[in-house]
């Protein structure tokens, strides 16, 4: 598997990313939730909670929860993470959703949140080497 592109492929202007505690959104739909939960249809929030989880030797952030406007592209998340970690553009950083796959940077956070949220958060795993290809 080719080394996945470092997550710095977009140079779009970052929009606001605010730090904050986790928002408990009532009855969010999550991929893989129970049937009862599925019956509840709720609007995804404008701001989405992202939880960063370090994998392997990656440095752990002081704060791992962040809110981001869901309309943003995932590229923003990557850039934000780089800034948080003080990584330069050349430093390798590999980002995964829910320890499963690496999404395209031009996918919207809203889409990712809708599809892959768990417990009202979008879990973003990051690591300095390719973990899941």
């Amino acid at each position, binding site marked *: *598997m*080719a*080394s*996945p*592109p470092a997550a*710095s*492929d*977009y*140079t*779009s202007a970052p929009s606001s990313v605010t730090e904050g505690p986790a928002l408990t959104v009532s009855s969010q*739909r999550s*991929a*893989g939730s129970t*049937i009862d939960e*599925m*019956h509840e*249809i*709720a*609007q*995804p*929030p*404008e701001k989405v909670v992202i939880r960063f989880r370090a994998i392997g030797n990656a440095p752990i952030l002081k704060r791992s929860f962040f809110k981001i406007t*869901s*309309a943003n592209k995932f590229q923003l998340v990557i850039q934000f993470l780089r800034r948080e970690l003080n990584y330069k553009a050349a430093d390798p950083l590999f980002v995964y*959703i*829910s320890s*499963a*796959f*690496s*999404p*395209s*940077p*031009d*996918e*919207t956070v*809203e*889409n*990712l949140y*809708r*599809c*892959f949220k768990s417990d009202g958060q979008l879990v973003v795993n990051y690591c300095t080497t390719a973990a*899941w*290809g």
Partner: protein
Amino acid sequence: MPKLPTDEDRFRKLVWHGKLPIQISLAKEDRAALLGRASPSSPPVYYVMAHRCSYLSLITDDVKAWLEALERAAPDRPSSIKPTQVWYAFNGAPLKWHYPIGLLYDLHSIRHPPGTVSAKPICTTKLPWTITVHLTNFPADRLLRNPSRDTTHHYFMAQYKEAEFMRAGSTKRVMNLPREDQDRLWAGLTTAEFETFWAVNHGAVNADDKDELPRHVAIRLYSRTDSAVVQVPLPLAELGSRTTVGEAIAYALRPEQFATGHPPKFRPEDESDQDAPYMVVLHGIVVSSTTPLLWLTRNLCYPDNFLHVVLL
């Protein structure tokens, strides 16, 4: 699910072998740099019978060879072509190389005949699909960087896993595939060998025999406008196995799905027919909205197991 009396893989094969003639012409600004002397009357063009399922970045090698041949023909040698700087555009709009070519074509070229909303659109764009190749000024703000073969490979596998995650709830099945099988997927795609690809894809992902339902259908809805790409988990368990495409799309575009409460506009020209049913374009054809979603998922997926549907 009643099985077709005909060849099961018939649709899959039709999808797989779908080709698109592309006319690639060298961008004006690059002509001088490449060819050196006064450009000939007709711009140098190159024709490619691209696979709909393939990616633009994979054509780059052929394009590069053609351009280099052009180069050699010129007496003075300009600088060599960097494949990572090569990008394609249609009507000036940069083409996302990480989208399948078929999707790109559907997105950019299928025209709804004006005025006829309900009539079935036909492919009105003249073939071949004329795109231009640029060698400089890579638009890094609109395209993903480094469109190399390896990067394309990575993106493909990432999309494959994403689709798997949506279908099964985890990427276990893909990750448990032996290395050779994973490589075979990509090899089959790049060499356009149906058997190679589907031998792995069939066993690992599409569990037709077991009649298992995917948890969610991996479907993405695209529109002509830049913004809208909708990816919504469609729980088959809730919707039922006999959900049609139309129903699924309706479900997907419910306002509640969206943070803003407004689904993205897919048909900017015809705002008045907001509620009219969308035209579902897939693989260059219009799909009837009565088509069962499950069947569609199983038979008309792109190689990455996504249904890249363009709504008109």
